[in-house]
């Protein structure tokens, strides 16, 4: 029998993490796509670095920057009464870090692919930036943005390294599905792990399929 509590925790954590990644990542993507400013490359490198850094390196940075003896960690603790590490907040932070690069990178490419002539025409007709953003840019780029969100979701759902290092692996509170699978396997409870393994595999494949067929259809598919 599979215990699904870790799976539901993972789903909650992933959605929270993705929501934050979108709230932070989408404005960043707009900024990176539409504006040239000093430090633009550096900003993009920083945002997308989690894609290429080893999870242990990321976990180390997170522990050092938001751990209980860090300035941010202490500030958070004085504000909320609880630490970031060893809590669901820590899991959500790990999920956000995992999802952010996909959200930013894919959204940025989609935003850059929107014909700038449309934006200029709308501006000439007197539409302000917020209106152009809501009625032209975001709707036209929506497939790429949603595709990035889906990939970010899949990546965040599967986060292991950072979560292991910062969340304390507490069953029912911070033990996400990938960590539960690891513990089940090490303790010889393969049967318990199998349900979770299948669920995560299924979700991963579903997301990729959706991204390929719907969010980023090949030119031949688009006609139909």
């Amino acid at each position, binding site marked *: 029998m599979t215990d699904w509590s870790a799976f539901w925790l993972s789903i909650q954590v992933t959605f929270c993490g993705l929501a934050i990644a979108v709230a932070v990542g989408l404005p960043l993507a707009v900024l990176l796509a539409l504006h040239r400013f000093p430090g633009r490359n550096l900003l993009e490198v920083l945002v997308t670095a989690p894609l290429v850094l080893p999870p242990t390196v990321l976990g180390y940075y997170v522990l050092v920057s938001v751990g209980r003896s860090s300035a941010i960690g202490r500030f958070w603790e004085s504000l909320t009464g609880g630490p970031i590490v060893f809590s669901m907040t820590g899991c959500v932070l790990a999920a956000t870090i995992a999802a952010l690069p996909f959200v930013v990178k894919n959204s940025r490419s989609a935003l850059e692919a929107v014909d700038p002539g449309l934006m200029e025409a709308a501006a000439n007709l007197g539409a302000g930036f917020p209106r152009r953003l809501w009625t032209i840019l975001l709707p036209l780029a929506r497939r790429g943005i949603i595709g990035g969100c889906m990939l970010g979701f899949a990546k965040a759902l599967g986060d292991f390294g950072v979560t292991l290092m910062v969340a304390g692996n507490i069953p029912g509170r911070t033990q996400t599905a990938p960590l539960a699978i690891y513990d089940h396997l090490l*303790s010889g409870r393969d049967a318990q792990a199998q349900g979770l393994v299948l669920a995560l595999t299924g979700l991963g494949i579903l997301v990729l399929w959706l991204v390929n067929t719907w969010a980023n259809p090949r030119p031949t598919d688009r006609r139909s």
Partner: protein
Amino acid sequence: MHPCRDLLVGMLLCVLHSGSLLNTAEPLIIAAASDLGPAMDELKWLHPQPITVVLGSTGLLARQIAQVAPFDLFFAANRSFADDLVRNGHGVADSAVLYGRGRIVVWTRAAAPAPAPVTLTDLLADRFVHIAIANPEHAPYGQAAKEALQNGGWWDRLEPRMVYGENVSQTLQLAQSGNADVAIVALSLAVAAPGGRWMLIDDALHAPIDQVAVMTTQARDPIASRAFLAAVASPAGRTIMRRYGFVLPGEALDSTLLRTPDAP
């Protein structure tokens, strides 16, 4: 006995056991429970061949050996994992040897502002917000820690404060970095960890942590592997193990290790 002489005797034993192996460049690969990290750094010099040590939680390493990981020796933190390997045909029965009994300690940072606990009951104090132990499901030192707290009647009240390290070494790191206020870890790690205070936990509170080493059936060099096991059991090996707080078969714990040497 003088430590230098112990070392010489140990090396001699290795040479006698391994014969011409001095020429072999292929390293022995030892999978060791993470409580053995500091001790292994010294033990490996008892052997004429280069030695590669792979550290991890006993459960993880046992799992890998069952999948034919290329380890020659397995130093488990608990007898049951080594026994399972032998039973399932991955460990050589007559090579299994009890190399020491582990002890657990309550470890706190020396730099922590609040006073260190003096008894396990002190852990109930509010200042210990997060208590780190190794994952009791597959790390023997975590099992012992949980058992001790259960037998003392503290577990139910402390469980909400528990956080779990993947292995006993990561557990110590959680407290060293100040993220957990206290950790229950192996004495062998506390001895080697700078900047901390420890307090020994009564071993009547938990089942003995009998550490058993076994040669794997896939060991590429059985003669050298057995020679290393003999070196660990030699007087030189025992000196090292004793210094790291392992209780050796037929001995009592080195009494200087009951608590941090400089603790008040």
